[in-house]
């Protein structure tokens, strides 16, 4: 496989873990930690897939997702949402905003890996 993944997340240890899992599988992983400038990062890096956390500093992941879907260039970009708030309404929100897939923390490593593969492959 192989491709570019942009990880938008602010917890350093979680970043470290995902980066490890994906790069071992041959993915190139870019990281961005600020919600406010996340859109610019997506435009600049042009990734094949975005992994997006919901609770980001300065801007919520849902807002970023809504903007991605509103723009022509990124409306079809696969987005994998991560959240630590595992309530039902969080999943509904993610779907409503147009997430390609939704995962609740803590996740299993294989789950992340297979999701990424499927989303980029499809």
């Amino acid at each position, binding site marked *: 496989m192989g491709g570019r993944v942009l990880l938008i997340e*602010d*917890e350093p*240890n*979680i970043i*470290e*873990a*995902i980066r*490890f*899992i994906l790069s071992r599988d041959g993915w190139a992983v870019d990281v961005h930690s600020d919600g406010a400038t996340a859109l610019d990062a997506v435009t600049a890096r042009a990734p094949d897939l975005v992994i997006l956390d919901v*609770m980001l*500093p*300065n801007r919520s992941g849902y807002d970023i997702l809504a903007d991605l879907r509103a723009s022509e260039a990124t409306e079809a970009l696969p987005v994998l949402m991560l959240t*630590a*708030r*595992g*309530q039902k309404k969080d999943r509904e929100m993610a779907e409503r905003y147009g997430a390609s897939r939704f995962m*609740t*923390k*803590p*996740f*299993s*490593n*294989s789950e992340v890996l297979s999701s990424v593969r499927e989303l980029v492959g499809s």
Partner: protein
Amino acid sequence: MLSFNLLVGVCLAYVGFLFLVAFAAEKRAQRGKAAWLRSPIVYTLSLSIYCTGWTFYGAVGYAARSGLEFVTIYLGPTIVMIGWWVILRKLVRIGRTQRITSIADLISSRYGKSTLLGVLVTVLAVVGTTPYIALQLQSVTLAFAVFAPSTAEMQASDLNSTALWVAAGLALFTVVFGTRNLDVNERHHGVVIAIAVEAVVKIVALIAVGVFVVWGLSGGAGDIMRMIDASPIAAWEIQPERWVTLTFLAGAAFLCLPRMFHVLVVENSDERHLATAAWAFPLYLMLISLFVIPIAVVGLAVMPAGANPDLFVLTVPLAFDRDGLAMLSFLGGFSSATSMVIVAAIALSTMVSNHIVMPIWLNARQGGATVSGDVRNVVLLSRRVSIAGVLALGYLYYRFSGGGEALAAMGLIAFVGVAQVLPALLGGIFWRGATRVGAATGVTLGFAVWLYTLFLPSFGVGGVMSAATFEAGPWGIGFLRPRALFGLEGIDPLVHAVFWSLALNTAAFFLGSLLSFPRPLERLQGATFVNIYRYSDSARGWGRSFVEAEDLLMMAQRILGAGEAQALFVAAATEQGKAGYLPDVTPDFLERLERELSGSVGAATAHAMLGQITGGVTVSVEDLMRVADESAQMMEYSSQLEAKSDELERTARQLREANEKLTALSIQKDAFLSQISHELRTPMTSIRAFSEILMDGDGMEGTDRRKYSSIIHDETLRLTRLLDDLLDLSVLENGQVTLNARDASLGAVLDRALAAVESRAEPGALRIIRGEAGGEVALYTDTDRLSQVFINIVSNAQKYCDADDPELRIEYREAGGKVSVDFIDNGTGIPKQSQSLIFEKFARLTDQRRAGGAGLGLAICREIMARLGGEIEYLPGQGGAAFRVTLPTAAASAAA
């Protein structure tokens, strides 16, 4: 003959005595034992500053020259006093409810808080009063000269230096006792008592001389009556126009003189005192004038021809070697002169400071009051400088006018000058239609006519005006001759000036008022003043506004002092049914604040300061309509209904707040669960991911393995910490906590907390400034818990204070069995909308990276303080983030 040195000695002793009396009165007032200081009798006696040094000596001279006419000066005030129900009661009520500080303040406040009118009346008062102060200096100096060894030795320069010493002494007394308090509502106890003592001295002195003259030098009352009819005085005939004019003038001056307004209205502490002064003050005036004619008649008979009748009160006893009596008489005259000067200086300095210095100062620093600097000190300083300035002016006037006859005539001339305020004053409190334009034109025109027809001519032919101007008018226009204006010839110059100045003044006042249209604020103030008995507590002025209560608190602290301002804001918030320091900024609250401030800096200045902060909010037509509606409602409903609706409103507000709180709580509970979930899941994610990595970690390097296990370890610790905090909070909230109370000093607990914080911090990051350490404050409390609170606050400051050079001030205060410790940093503080949130669970305001905790710290602090019988609160308006921890002292804990 009395030795001059003895006289000076007695005089100094008397002054020292007055200082002591004033000082003792201030001390008593401080201890709250001011009741007798504020009796109706003291109020009445303080009014006696109407009788100045020149009336004390000069009345006899006046009587020697013009017979009974002198008495008109006392008849006018008598009529005003016995008619207190009509004018004075209203003035005093207005003065008290509107916190009026001077006559200029009253006029300025009535006409829409106009700065222009404040300045006009102040200038007029200064011009009218300066010669009068000069006159007092002259009377004291002349009296000294009478006792001087011989006229040859007493040079003019000695007289001047006497006047200078007297002026300097008076300035000192006035500054010491007249500018002690800023808020006029606190009043000048020391000054008033000293004046009351002087009032007694002068009436006793005059009556003593009178008794000596009637029963000592002649054969009693009957004999005196025969002497009067035989004396040259009997040849004098009443001049009707002078009689009427002078009586009216004296009455007008009694109301308008700045010093009289000060004692009548500003220093009045109780309206009921007027009911006593109504008869007691006329009685005082009658007793003062009772012996004037007998002294004049006997003086004319026994003294050598050419003796100055103005000094008979002194020279007659001296001529018969009654040294003690002469001394008493001297002290009476001295008292009259000094008390007048002291009160006049206080009244004038208040006006100059509030209406000239403060507006200029405020203008000079736009946007000023909140930025920096202590307004309170500026006000006090400007008052002190003004007092010295007023006395210096008086002294210079005395020096350069050369004293003598020209100065003697000044008393009545000054009366006419200050009486120019009368139309604007009476019109202002009885006629709603009076406007600022009318008042300003009236006062200006009257003032100008007074200058032209009376003041400038008083310097004599060839003085300021040339002989030609007197004879033929300026530029030969006969119509404008200063003593025959508009062709009105052949009447007494004084009557002429009073007639034209007041007639033109009143006409301009009415015309100006009828033709101009008042601004909304003027109409509101007009309605309030005229109907003062109906709306004693509503001076509308502030409409809707978007000002932050916090800004207002900052400004109020600068003017009223921190303690008083905070108390005021808390009281206002409590009345609105709210907790904390910040009430809603309602129009009612703004008006109340403005009134409090105007007690310190005058109405116009207070209005301007609030205007600066509220962004120059002016009253709109809608506000006016609202006020009109309210007044209509007020008349319709009884006051009880109104009280009920107030109560209803308060209850509704409380209900609304309770409801909002409940809704917020329910949202909070959901948020809390979701937050806990987030806080638990985040570390668990890392733990799970890395343990999986380690589990299938074939071929992983040793360093990576170590690194990943240590991440797992750290995240586990984070989870434990969070669970500890949650457990701690839950135990505290359920009240299951056991406290280990023990004796300790506040300083020791603080030391421990600071040491704990410093051991963890990178050095030099946050500078901690401890005021007095508070080591001596004894506590009986759980010291571990308390230092946990302190540690939390200080480490919060470490994390969040965003100043370049961060510092934290720690101050403590002990009062009423409680000690409060303030922690104030120099960062940007916490925005107002977040201040009520910070004590909630998980209320992290910024990026969690910097926080490093779960956001439970302050919530735990709040619970701990509640268990320890104290509280922790956010203190707004301190510049940076500020927390106040309050807890009972050891003594209070033991008593509980």
